[in-house]
């Protein structure tokens, strides 16, 4: 199981990521477990999800955008944004859109190729949980959030840009 950092501490993962090939019958078989489901699953199985007793979150791949979710975001406890490779920067924009344009307040999780050296920028874009790649040292990763004391731009954690603060 991959290691999880949430709100800058090591945390236990209470969510199970569903594979894209899984069908809606899983919700009948496994009751009560918390699932993060792919966007297509979310869009195609609204009835089953409504009846389900556990919590459901959404997984967006890097080529999918928050606009596609098409439901009340305040009802979604977790959104996981995927990084198929760490150099695919699309989900940085999706995270910031979710936090600032859509005012999303739930857990925003970075999943996929998540490494120590991207954690600072990821956190500035609004991610508050990180499912680390299996080979990453979680203690080392915790230090990454202090790589920089501040930055010039308006970010999710510091919405006032430096030019309005200096």
């Amino acid at each position: 199981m991959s290691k999880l950092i949430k709100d800058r501490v090591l945390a236990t993962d209470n969510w199970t990521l569903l594979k894209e090939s899984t069908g809606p019958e899983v919700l009948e078989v496994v009751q009560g477990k918390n699932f993060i489901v792919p966007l297509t699953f979310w869009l195609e199985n609204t009835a089953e999800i409504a009846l389900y007793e556990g919590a459901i979150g959404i997984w967006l791949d890097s080529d999918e955008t928050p606009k596609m979710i098409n439901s009340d975001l305040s009802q979604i406890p977790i959104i996981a944004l995927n990084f198929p490779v760490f150099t695919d920067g699309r989900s940085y924009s999706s995270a910031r859109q979710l936090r600032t344009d859509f005012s999303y307040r739930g857990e925003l999780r970075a999943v996929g190729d998540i490494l120590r050296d991207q954690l600072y920028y990821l956190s500035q874009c609004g991610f508050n949980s990180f499912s680390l790649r299996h080979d990453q040292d979680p203690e080392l990763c915790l230090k990454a959030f202090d790589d920089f004391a501040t930055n010039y731009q308006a970010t999710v954690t510091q919405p006032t840009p430096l030019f309005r603060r200096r």
Partner: protein
Amino acid sequence: MYQYDSYDHKMLEDRIDQFRDQTNRYLSGSLSEAEFLPLRLQNGLYVQRLAPMLRIAVPYGMLSSAQLRKLAHIARHFDKGYAHFTTRQNIQFNWPDLADVPDILSHLAEVEMHAIQTSGNCIRNTTTDQFAGVAQEELEDTRVYCEIIRQWSTFHPEFAYLPRKFKIAVCGTKIDQAATQVHDIGIYLKKNETGETGFRILAGGGLGRTPVIGQEVFEFVKKEYLLIALESILRVYNREGRRDNKYKARIKILVKATGIEVFRKKVMDEWQSLDTSKLKLNQAEFDRCAKFFLPPAYKTFNGNSDFLNASLKSNALFASWHQQNVDDHKVPGYAIVTVCFKETGVAPGDVTDAQLEKLAQLADEFSFGEARVSHDQNVVFADVHQEHLFELWSALKSNALASANLSLLSDIICCPGGDFCALANAKSIPIAESIQRQFSDVKEQQAVGELSINISGCMNACGHHHVGNIGILGVDKKGAEFYQVSLGGSSRHEASLGSIIGPAFAQDDIPGVVEKIVNVYKAEKKHSETFIETYNRIGIDPFKEKVYVKAD
């Protein structure tokens, strides 16, 4: 010049600590090659054919004498005694040791310099006309806006992993010397009907394999909205730019594929959804940045040019240099001097540690302690009193820095080419040298007049061959180096891309080919037409005929 405050210093310190740690982890084997790659690139470090190459950012080309001395020190202690001015107003070292790089960065930080985002798929150094603030015909000093963009783009957390590199140029002068229209974003200062300052913003320009002139996204953006406009364009590009093929990943391909209308609509949609209340620039920030670029303490001009005129009369070499390398300044009594780094036999843009020291000394003596790097790889002293021109020229001359070939055909823009670069298909520096030798007489060059030659060793086009009046591109033909020649490019306001004249030539043929092209111009020119004006009037065919004519 911009001066760091405690925030700027702290961010730079944090960055060096971060990169030192990353380098250590790489050298100890806990960070893989592929994972280290984008990290080192965003700190200016390439791994090249012979050694690593470290590219130092020179924000919009501005250098203080203290910075020049520091660069000389680095050239001496960490390199082989020289450095290289690039075509984007930066400076690079070709021989540093990887393990020394964090120490070099610490040295640079002492003089408020760094190598941040000088390579990699991120927003690069913002460039501008090297005459910003001193040009006779200029709307406003663009450096104020360049500095605002520099800060916004440095460590921007959302845009560190773009599909590809991203270059921004800003222009406020009548003669655009920044190649603004061939940048990913090109920004022209502009005033609207009510006299308010704002920007005309183009996107999707670029050179490389697919040369394109940028298209207009915004006809006019009020200056307060500058960062919102940029952020909106970058967001669309980051989300939608192609990532499946690095040769199709620049914003120009996206703009072409969507069409400018659709692209503009996407940008406007982002603009609408951004929280603009905090991003909107305010007068306090414009004022804060503007105070770093106030005019120096110019002396009042008494109207007397006798000394200059006498020197021009008595010394033909000085007069020739003055005609070619000295431009009018907006302040009476002052002049803009360009030191041309295109000495025959020296790679264009190469500078030794001793020359850097000398430039620092001359900047202190003659130009308020500042110098500028131009995009054509030369160095500018922007504020020289005309009474001192002769003295400055004499000092340059005794240091072999008084080439009087600015903007003439031996002032060649050239990439490092196959001698240094791992990407190159062919050498470029020896080609530049062979052309310079063919036209060694400055008098003859002055008779030909303004003519730009640009040479790239491969189609990545670092020598900007598409926008050279004569463009030369090194190509590989079954293992042999050949050179494709194009005519009619320009990077100025009337920007245009050159057309290929025909089949490629062998290396030895190039000086002769250039001479034939120049002879066609000489025969066809009317009145005071420049090369590009004659070319635009007569087209490529007369040149083609002469260049490919069979020998009798």
